[in-house]
């Protein structure tokens, strides 16, 4: 298998492009996906290659974008709808939660909803409170839909391809901070990563760090620093928040007995809450220290750079938490 070095943005773009070439039913719709070439450049060149029928610029109508994508998926297409940022997906919450996720169950299997909603997620560029979110746990709350959140270009490619080919709805969250970050990407049109499979991105015996998307990189950075003093962190990249691969987390925890959950999201009712709850339910007897969480500060996220940096999680905060659980 050939491997190319690509930023995540390009990995996503090639995954989407390949799937559109492969399957006529796949089309993209969203704000500025066509003539603008995509506000995050994921659909660069698509309008020229696939035309207006398959590259559909929409009005600024998030409710209708998500809802129409659901209807088109029910009626046999494979829409890939784009939310310019996941903050705008709040406007489409009803279509996503009440319809994309529930239609199959509510009508007891009468319909399939093979839909992908891509959304740029994360914060840290002084985007201010209403545009600074990493609300993946909110969306992962609801059964009926999968939630993808890759941390590397290769994962992004393999996961997006899988999401598009799967018959279930997937909310595909792309970390804005990771778009430009390069990494090796398999040059394989059938590179597919299974839904709901976490990956151990670094092995270690002293403490398990659980994270997703940008958080994985803070964890890896922290792990490198701590390794210099002999503390070995195992970094579990969940990759999907639903289904949640707790088996991988638990296997690691059974080895390390200590855990820190790291996320860009807010702390309450978060991934950290969920992982900690499941660990105490399913691995209580392996627990040697309280589980700690590193997350955004519990405030509407501020504009001033200094305040924003205080609110953002980072590798230093991960290191401090690791030291706490190793006390």
């Amino acid at each position, binding site marked *: 298998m050939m491997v190319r070095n690509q930023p995540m943005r390009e990995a996503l773009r090639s995954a989407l492009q390949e799937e559109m070439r492969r399957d006529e039913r796949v089309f993209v719709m969203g704000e500025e996906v066509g003539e603008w070439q995509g506000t995050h450049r994921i659909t660069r060149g698509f309008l020229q290659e696939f035309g207006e029928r398959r590259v559909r610029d929409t009005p600024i109508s998030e409710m209708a974008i998500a809802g129409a994508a659901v209807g088109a998926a029910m009626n046999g297409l494979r829409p890939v709808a784009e939310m310019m940022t996941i903050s705008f997906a709040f406007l489409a919450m009803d279509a996503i939660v009440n319809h994309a996720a529930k239609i199959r169950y509510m009508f007891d299997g009468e319909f399939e909803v093979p839909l992908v909603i891509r959304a740029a997620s994360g914060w840290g560029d002084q985007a201010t409170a209403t545009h600074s979110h990493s609300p993946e746990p909110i969306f992962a709350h609801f059964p009926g839909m999968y939630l993808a959140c890759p941390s590397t270009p290769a994962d992004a490619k393999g996961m997006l391809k899988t999401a598009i080919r799967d018959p279930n709805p997937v909310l595909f969250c792309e970390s804005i901070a990771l778009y430009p970050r390069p990494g090796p990407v398999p040059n394989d049109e059938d590179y597919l990563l299974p839904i709901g499979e976490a990956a151990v991105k670094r092995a270690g*015996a002293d403490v398990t760090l659980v994270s997703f998307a940008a958080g994985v990189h803070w964890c890896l950075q922290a792990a490198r620093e701590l390794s210099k003093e002999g503390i070995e962190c195992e970094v579990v990249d969940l990759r999907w928040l639903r289904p949640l691969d707790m088996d991988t987390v638990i296997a690691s925890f059974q080895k390390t*007995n200590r855990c820190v959950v790291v996320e860009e999201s807010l702390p309450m009712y978060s991934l950290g809450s969920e992982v900690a709850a499941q660990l105490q339910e399913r691995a*209580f*007897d*392996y*627990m*040697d*220290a309280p589980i700690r969480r590193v997350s955004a500060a519990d405030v509407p996220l501020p504009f001033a750079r200094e305040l924003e940096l205080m609110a953002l999680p980072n590798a230093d905060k991960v290191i401090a938490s690791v030291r706490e659980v190793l*006390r």
Partner: protein
Amino acid sequence: MSTPITLSVAGILLNWLVEEGAAVQSGDVIAEIEADKATVEIEAPVHGILLSLSAEPGDELAEGATIAAIAAVGEEAVAADREAEEADELGPDAATESEDAITAAAAESKEPDTMQTERLRASPLARKLAAERGIELHQVKGSGPQGRIVKADVENFTASQPVAASIPSTAEGHEELAIGRMRKRIGEGTSRSKREAPHFYVTIEVDVDSLLDMRRQWNETQREAQKASVNDLLVKAVALTLRDFPNLNTHFVDGKLLRHWRRNIGISVALEGGGLINVVAKEADRRELGELADANRTMIERAREGRIRPGDVEGATFTISNLGPYDVLEFSAIIDPPQAGILAVSSTRRVPVVREDGSLGVGRRMRLTVSVDHRVSDGAEAARFLQQLRQHLESPLRLFLSEQE
């Protein structure tokens, strides 16, 4: 408002050592419990008046049982006052006053420190490991936040469990005997050690003439309680040597090495009815000889009398097994996992020696054999360890000096 006295161990109440209504100081031994392993002394957690004795000698008590309470001084009087008030049917003003007093007493007895001593802090994993290994958690010292017992503490504790020789079997004319719990535990511990820790052994012979002479002179100047045994000197010498050999003061735990910066020397104590208990001389390298000797003697006595206290047996980082009193030429001991080594001390013998000037004479010699876990160290290091130990024993002045580190 009183502090309950709750058992951290199951057992049979042997004796109340303090009568109900008596004043006790924090740390006073108030009762004795015959536990699974030994007699455990129950100490008063706070100052106050011992009240509400709810168990009698002979009662079998579960872990967590409350056997008495200690009332803050003044509370008992308040209670009595109130009874008197009720009898006299005094007015509400007097009642208010006494309630104020109760509140004050409550505030006093609710100091966080005393509350915390009540609850045993241990991680779920530590609890599970302790249960699996038959360890009473109250005997384990916690190294985590607020003294929480964590996995490593239980594993270190396991390592301090005693060592025993194997029991020979008879070919005929035998009877089958029940294996006692202590023997069983020793058997399991040593089997595991031999199975998991690859032992190797290095032996030296030490000239102990100077050591014994100096000990005699030193002891002549000491109060009875502070007189040092050969064993006390060995404990201190080993602890000092370990300062330069941290690798041998390291524990092998689940494939990881856990280096200890305190040198706590376990001392194997043979019990009269058979079996062994290791008492621990904490930070023996830093302690003044007389004080160390006094503390060791007290612990050893308690162990032999079956009145061991949790603090006596926890936290050994290296162990000494001394068969000196039994006229032993040489022997080797089994390591207590997860410790890395154990020193076997044989008897002092008078032997013919060739002195440095070539003359013949009689000298006192003692053989020392160290058993070391090959996963942690190797022969050369063990030999260097013994060389340095020999220096401490053959030029023993430092052992007798108190020092500041």
